[in-house]
């Protein structure tokens, strides 16, 4: 604490140990990432024969990245992810904002029963099997892009966050707009939403990150590789073993392209894929960190 002026020896020792402890935490957080980055720029053969932690770049080269950028799966994966993230977030936000506004109005007779209907889904769910049957058998969305957008597009939790923010907007604003003859839609989109920008930013970011990292729905609903989002492509490359899909075409680097070389580059390509898929997140994240923090806090106050 800043105002504590006279420090005892014990207190100083504690401070020192504490600082060291957090330095260690930082190292532990960064080390796996550092390992991946260094390995991704190193020589393929060296990486394959390396045991233990890689903490420096050996024979700097970008061959792995050449292979990854040459791999069309990564690019279609990126494109598909953008489609799913955009589709989910846009649809989800639209539904969330409209419902949250209607449910935040005190004079709406049905607000509480509908709110209960929606909140209850946070406590009890039908589980994945009935949902899977519904989506694939009844709605006929097996292997359809819609299967990744429709069932997951909105979340009750974020609806509650937006609703709370709207409830805190003074009633007088809405009343005076109504006297001016503004309709509900005008009030929502032109008066209310600009006032809760921070909450909206938080919710949009959580929708984006959730959809960016999502892979499970894609795995159960999709069969056509060209519809796979990035995370599912990553799963094939990083996690799935003994799968022909996890092999890479190395002809871009050498004309021979024999399978021994493919094995040689396999490990390197894994590291490069991790970097290529995670870099956007790392660039994006520091700018929006405060929104994620505030999301946790509004959620906590509400919860």
């Amino acid at each position: 604490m800043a105002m504590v002026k006279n420090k005892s020896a014990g207190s100083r020792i504690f401070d020192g140990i504490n600082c060291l402890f957090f330095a260690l935490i930082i190292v532990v957080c960064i080390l796996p990432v550092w390992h991946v980055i260094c390995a991704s720029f190193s020589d393929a053969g060296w990486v394959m024969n390396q045991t233990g932690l890689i903490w420096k770049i050996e024979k700097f080269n970008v061959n792995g990245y050449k292979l990854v950028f040459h791999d069309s799966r990564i690019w279609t994966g990126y494109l598909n992810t953008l489609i799913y993230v955009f589709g989910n977030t846009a649809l989800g936000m639209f539904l969330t904002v409209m419902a949250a506004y209607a449910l935040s109005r005190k004079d709406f007779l049905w607000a509480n029963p509908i709110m209960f209907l929606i909140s209850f889904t946070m406590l009890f769910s039908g589980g994945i099997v009935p949902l899977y049957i519904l989506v694939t058998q009844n709605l006929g969305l097996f292997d359809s892009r819609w299967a990744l957008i429709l069932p997951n597009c909105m979340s009750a939790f974020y609806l509650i966050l937006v609703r709370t923010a709207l409830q805190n907007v003074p009633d007088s604003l809405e009343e005076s707009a109504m006297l001016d003859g503004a309709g509900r839609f005008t009030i929502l989109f032109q008066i209310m939403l600009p006032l809760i920008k921070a909450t909206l930013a938080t919710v949009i970011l959580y929708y984006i990150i959730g959809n960016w990292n999502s892979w499970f729905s894609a795995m159960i609903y999709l069969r056509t590789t060209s519809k796979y989002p990035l995370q599912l492509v990553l799963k094939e490359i990083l996690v799935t073993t003994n799968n022909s899909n996890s092999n890479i075409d190395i002809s871009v680097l050498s004309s021979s392209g024999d399978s021994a070389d493919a094995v040689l580059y396999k490990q390197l390509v894994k590291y490069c894929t991790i970097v290529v898929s995670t870099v956007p997140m790392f660039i994006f994240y520091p700018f929006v960190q405060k929104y994620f923090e505030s999301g946790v806090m509004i959620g906590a106050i509400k919860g």
Partner: protein
Amino acid sequence: MQNSTIASEPLRKSRKFTWPNIKRDFKKNWPLFVMVLPAVAFYIIFHYIPMGGLLMAFENFKPKLGFFDSPFVGMENFADFFGSAFAGRTIRNTLILSLLQIGIEFPLTILFALLLNELRSKRYRKTIQTISYMPYFISMVVVAGIIIDFCSTDGAITSFIGSITGNYDNLLGNPSNWRTIYVVSDLWKNLGFDSIIYVAALSSIDQTLYEAAEIDGANRLQRILRVTIPGIIDTIMIMLILRVGQMLSVGYEKTILLYNPQVYETADILSSFVYRKGLQEANYGYSTAVSLFNSVINFILLLFANAFSKKYTESGLF
């Protein structure tokens, strides 16, 4: 909820669901109906219809016959599950993982926030926060990829452990390592980010309390024990109660990315078992029964947790 302000008092009276009220409300608020309708449709289709679909648990469900024509088998699916060795194994593994999360991850998250709060340099604190939140945003697939790499025969962790024990086997192939790997990777991914809530609670403690404690001659440890911890004990209790309420809902993502038949003995949990039986082996009725059992227990635990929370901390989830 917080509608009990004086301004909304007159509205309260018209809040009864009598026919004239319903008609008046619809005439005035039909735009609100239009706005809420898509969300209601979404919840009915993608949440309530699947809830109704839970009745599959009592059927020998065949997709070709459909929900209404599949043969009804009563409690047979439940009897099958509880009569098999899977029941004990999956319930035990789910509970043990949950208890490890409550017993290890939960207190460490609080400790992390407490120690962070004791740091004197504000800039150092910010740096630590930024860096330690970062793993939370790395996707589970990538984290799984890194775990597989680090735990493989020549991986970083295997080499380190091997240099001590002389055993360089793939760590993910040994059932006795599973829980350690699960908890440690959880800590790496979530410890920083999960601490946000306590960091926020700590920053709202009245600073004059510390000054008063110091004047009274309290040393640093005493200040932590007498001021800091009492200041965040409500938050801790609510989080603990909610966590206990989710005891049997351990997620399947990490498990199905990392497990293999060799380690099912310790790795297979209820949710991964439901996924495997239902979606991989198309044993729909049976897996729905397991899933229904899991959901009901979760629901009951959550109700208990909430009632408990309301009684002791005057705040609950609902």
